[in-house]
């Protein structure tokens, strides 16, 4: 089952590009939801055996990343009638190129890090790093608050992937705690987006720059 990890990770990477290149908000959220589901699967695969905790964890991850958060985001879009376009600061092509560059860098950097015997050749580290970078790219180049939440989510996904290396190290309690925190964070962000849209009647962060020097 261990050999399933790499195909899943390739899919995750492709979804990164999808999230970067899509112009429709809806598409982006779908991509992220799919990525979340894949990560849930990854948990089981990485554990290499069907323990009850592993399944529980996978379920939690899938529910949260694949279902709950995307629903929340969709809800937000509907609720505050966000326009459907992504509104990038730099163009989609440029985003994609930067994403490619980031992935390359991630691979290069992960090559400089020594890898344990059992993980040599595995895509986990490069995938984790490049997903993290993709998250940062989305965070820094997308105007809408909601896309920034998406970026944060991608960032977290990258870290989640890295966590797969440490399945033994990470007690489930902590993992659950991490997921819970993520959830609450997104939830609070959602609330704030909601209020922002009420106050500013837009959720573009362009309006959120009155606090400055």
């Amino acid at each position: 089952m261990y050999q399933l990890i790499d195909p899943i990770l390739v899919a995750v990477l492709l979804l990164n590009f999808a999230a970067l290149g899509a112009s429709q908000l809806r598409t982006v959220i779908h991509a992220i939801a799919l990525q979340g589901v894949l990560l849930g699967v990854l948990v089981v695969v990485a554990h290499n055996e069907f323990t009850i905790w592993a399944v529980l964890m996978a379920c939690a991850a899938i529910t949260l990343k694949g279902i709950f958060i995307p629903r929340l985001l969709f809800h937000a879009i509907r609720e505050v009638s966000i326009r459907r376009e992504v509104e990038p600061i730099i163009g989609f092509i440029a985003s994609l190129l930067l994403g490619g560059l980031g992935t390359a860098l991630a691979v290069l950097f992960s090559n400089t890090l020594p890898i344990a015997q059992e993980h040599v050749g595995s895509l986990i580290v490069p995938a984790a790093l490049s997903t993290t970078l993709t998250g940062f790219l989305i965070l820094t180049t997308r105007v809408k608050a909601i896309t920034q939440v998406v970026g944060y989510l991608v960032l977290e996904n990258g870290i989640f992937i890295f966590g797969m290396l440490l399945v033994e190290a990470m007690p489930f309690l902590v993992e659950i705690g991490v997921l819970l925190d993520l959830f609450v964070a997104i939830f609070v962000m959602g609330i704030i987006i909601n209020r922002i849209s009420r106050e500013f009647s837009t959720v573009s962060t362009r309006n959120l720059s009155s606090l400055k020097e």
Partner: protein
Amino acid sequence: MTQLLVITAIVLHAISGVPGLLFKRSADAGQKLSVALSTFGTVVGITGSIASLWFSTPKTSIIAIDGLSVIFLLPIFLISTLGSIYGLSYWKQADHPDNGQKLRLFYGLVTAALAAVTIAANAIVFLVAWEIMALSAYFLITTEDKDTAVRESGWVYLIATHLATLCLFGLFALLHSATGSFQLSPLTAGAVAPGVFTAMFLLALIGFGLKAGLMPLHMWLPGAHAMAPSHVSALMSGVLIKIGIYGFLRLCSLLPEPPLWWGGVILAVGVTSGVLGVVFALGQHDLKRLLAYHSIENIGIITIGIGLAMVGRTLERTDFVLLGMAGALLHVWNHGLFKSLLFLSAGAVIHATHTREIDQLGGLAKSMPRTALYFAVGAAAICGLPPLNGFVSEFLIYLGLFHSLNSGSGMTWTAAAFAIPALAMIGALAVTCFVKAFGAVFLGVARSEHARHAHEAKSMMTGPMLALVGFCLAIGLTPLLVAPVLEHGIRAWEPAAFDSGQKLTMLAPLGWLTIAGAALIVLITLGSFVLARRLRRCGVNPGVTWDCGYAAPASTMQYTSSSFAQMIVALFSWVLRPRVETPAEQPVFANAAHFHSHVSDIVLDGVLRPSFRFGAKITSSFRFLQAGNIHAYLFYIVLFLICLLLWR
């Protein structure tokens, strides 16, 4: 026991302003109580300080009183109390309900802290006392903080004093690294690299020099002295800036084997301060600013003495050390006495006329005869004229410098060769400046309504001045009496100074000064007697001043202080950079014309303000980094992360 007395005095001074807070803002009772506390504290403190000269007490790790401390303790207590008595009438609580309480609170604190600095035996106590002193002084300067100019001056002071404190941080940290403790105890040569000693010396020179107001670190001094209430100016100029000298002396005494160039640097700084201080004073037409620049000058003179003593330490010439230090220490006292006297009398003038502009005054000797007399004594003393105290200390420094002529070392006597004429020039310039100040303020005819309606100061104000006059005369006429105390101070600074068996009284003919002074007084009395007799015998006709036949001399025809100083200002225009408004070419029938020259401070207004403005402009240009754009913020994080990941 003596330590206990001094500490009691410090505590009494520290709390002297507190009772005032409990009384009503319009009541004078608190003020009287505070003066009583302060007076009592001073009596106790002076007793304790003098006693500690004869009954030596063991040093503790916190406080230590030695001869050097006593030299500085005495004027601190004395002048503070005289000032607070003066304040009874000058800054009456009832007249200043808004800030009288604050003033007295910090006045007591600053006195206590000053005294505490001089007896601190370790760096931490020193720093704490130092900063309480510095901050209290800030609040004293900004007593009238509603006034923008006052706030401005206070701010400049605060920056300067904080820079000084930071220098002291560095200094004491170096001391700590050299000795492993914070005790202010002498270092041994070779304990650390020579570079560390040099760094300590330079930090001390800058840190303490900032407080003392050495040119070019004097930028805070004129404004602060001008803006503070006069008795505060007296305290600041009289003793507060001397604490910088104290600190510098104390530190120098700890550093072993000073290289010759240290002394040279100190001498050069002293000469610069002395000459430029008085030159700048000449350009002023604010009475208190003028006096403030004279403080810079006198600090310069003191520093010349210290420089000589340092050279003496290097060359192991006890005569330089004795004469230089004696001159410097005595000048610390003397300047404290006559400068407070001058500030107090200037305060009386301001109190009576409500202006500090010299060119608005004039003729006050008629309406304020006592104040005028006291000012004249102070002026003569500050110019170093015999038979007053200023002469004695300058005499000692001159003598020391002349001694360095036969030192054999070419370097040092070159130092003397430029310091002696410089000192002479300082003296002559001071005479010029004080003739100008005394003449323009007290002599001639009133130049404005302010001056015309002046009245003599109350006895609470003239009393302290009279006391100071007495001290000036006493030291000037009987310098032998103070020599033992000075020797104690020198012994604390450099114990080796007496190794060769030389004594101050052997090197300096102080007794002759008494005789000469007495002779001078006799001659003057005799002359006055003769003149008075002749005048009575031959008759005196009152008349108007003869103005080449001009029919109606007016007060505006008098020479103003600007005009008086014009030639000197022109001579020194290369450093003063005066802004002169000369009258334009006039037609045959001349219109009203106007001559005015203004000398701004070259360091503050010429260098510091522009560079601060420039710095602020540079920093403002970085504001775009924080423009409210969250994307940029996140980008900084990534960037920083990548930088650190690539660190090694």
